[in-house]
């Protein structure tokens, strides 16, 4: 305030300029213009998806739709809902397997004395960066040898591909809880299970949730692993079905668009609902202590 008082020594003439910041500084104009261009870059390809999904004469072109809801009825036929249910089964199993295993390991790494903890954590960190495509050939060979080319083993594998990163996310969350709480409970003779269920799990829930969402989305979006590892067409998940759509002779563009929207919706909703906790969990620094 003293600065403004110096700049305007005559108080009888109130300044028309706001004190905080100019409304349209060059920085602000450039920022907003840049964002509008980038926004168009993001929006334009998406527009087609929405327009075509309600267009009875859809093609690859973006145009004003002849409104119809028939595409959604087509995309909700039993054959296609079956694919979505398969996606759900696949993703849920993967999420549960990975999150339970990751929580147990993360708690142990965070709270217990484990020999070679540092090198083991570095190895896990390295695993989370290994491109998954290397697994396709050896896993195909292994699964076909024991006759596991079906939905359940594939779901477990998809869980394992998310496991290293989930261990990191949950370990960061457990590290953030003050140790005093557990010690206090320990002094009060609470059992290990009680400490976990009453203190650790409730407090790490945002971290666990973000890890679980990561696992779910990782499995939901995967295309090539189910395509190779699930031999029965009836067990194939959504994206493989969509691939069939795209490669059929007479493409029904409207139905493809409607199915993509139905298929994408759960993931987008999950993210938007949990975005706060997800961003909180997305701390990459300080992973190895």
């Amino acid at each position, binding site marked *: 305030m003293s600065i403004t008082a110096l700049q305007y020594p005559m108080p009888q003439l109130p300044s028309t300029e706001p004190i905080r910041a100019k409304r349209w*500084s060059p920085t602000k104009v450039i920022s907003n213009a840049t964002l509008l261009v980038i926004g168009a870059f*993001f929006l334009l390809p998406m527009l*087609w998806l929405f327009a075509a999904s309600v267009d009875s004469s859809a093609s*690859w072109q973006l145009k004003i739709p002849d409104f119809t809801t028939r595409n959604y009825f087509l995309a909700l036929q039993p054959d296609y809902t079956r694919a979505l249910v398969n996606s759900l089964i696949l993703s849920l199993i993967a999420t549960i397997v990975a999150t339970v*295993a990751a929580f147990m390991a993360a708690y142990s790494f965070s709270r217990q004395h484990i020999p070679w903890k540092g090198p083991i954590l570095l190895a896990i960190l390295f695993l989370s960066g290994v491109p998954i495509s290397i*697994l396709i*050939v050896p896993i195909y060979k*292994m699964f076909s040898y024991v006759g596991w080319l079906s939905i359940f083993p594939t779901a477990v594998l998809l869980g394992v591909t998310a496991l290293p990163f989930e261990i990191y996310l949950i370990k960061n969350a457990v590290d953030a809880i003050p140790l005093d709480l557990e010690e206090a409970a320990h002094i009060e003779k609470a059992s290990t299970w009680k400490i976990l269920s009453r203190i650790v799990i409730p407090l790490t829930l945002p971290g666990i949730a973000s890890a679980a969402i990561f696992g779910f989305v990782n499995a939901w979006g995967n295309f090539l692993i189910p395509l190779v590892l699930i031999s029965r067409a009836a067990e194939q998940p959504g994206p493989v079905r*969509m691939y069939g759509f795209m490669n059929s002779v007479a493409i029904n*563009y409207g139905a493809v668009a409607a199915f993509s929207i139905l298929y994408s919706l759960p993931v987008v909703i999950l993210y938007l609902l949990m975005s706060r906790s997800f961003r909180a969990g997305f701390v990459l620094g300080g992973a190895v202590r």
Partner: protein
Amino acid sequence: MVELVSNPDARTLDALVAENGARLDKPRFKPSSLLLLFPAAALLIGLFIYPVGYSVYLGFTNLQLIGPNAIHFRFTGLQNVYFLLSDQVFYRSIWLTLVFVVGSGAVGTTILGLVIALALQSALTSVRMVVSSLAIVAWTLPPAAIAIIWYAATTQGGVFPVMFGYPHADALYDHAMLVVSLANTWSLAGLAAIIFSAALRNVPQEMLEAAKLEDANAYQRLTRLTLPILKPTILTSALLMTLLSFGNFTLIYLMTKGGPSGDSNILPVYSYLQGFTFKKLGYAALLGDVIVLMSGALGIAYVWLAQARRSGRSPKSFSV
């Protein structure tokens, strides 16, 4: 940081422990830890570490998808490596992979995400809401949906060819690599923007205000203060985007199958095609090994860059 140096004092303590049994003043290894670690360890070893090792072995065999060598395959030594070294498609594929994961992934996505995060700081509320949700939705969309969206946007009569005045051009066919790179950047920039927004919140406001009082203009504040402070985040983002781009080959597979005539044939796609289209699983496994070596080399390069930049200060902790 991992300390591997053992000092002599510790060794004598270890000797004492051996004589007198476990020490009570130090945390000890509890058997219950094994129980907690077992599921993750079994899953990671059985379905991740062992397959990676198995893939190294398979890379030196003549394993095929079907036919006589499907079951009775054998070790063929360096035969696959000789084939690899004389494979012109492979060399082209390495170059295309670098363009995809470093060009569009590390550089493109990081720059776009940084620009979005910086611009969001001084944007109108409505613009900020719309653009940030668009970028985040683009990031959350599954790869198969992104492939369809970008196929539609760049094929004949799609949004982008029409917008630039060539409605009959098939951008996806003519410039396959450019299109799939743009699609990759489009799909990852939202995540980069989230990372940079979080990092920008940690830039100390006092420094920026002090710079303002010293009459530093916006450009000077950006290049002299904000960007140097963000340097570690920039390298983290570059590494993360490189790895995510390696995983994003589904986009390419769905949009172009590596074509036309190998124009977008990056290594993961080439490996899949060799294995499951040309039935040469052994060669596909070797290509997979090359992918892991390549991502490892890129990862080491970024970590090295990060360490080199940070050498003036003492590293606080080992971060990705």
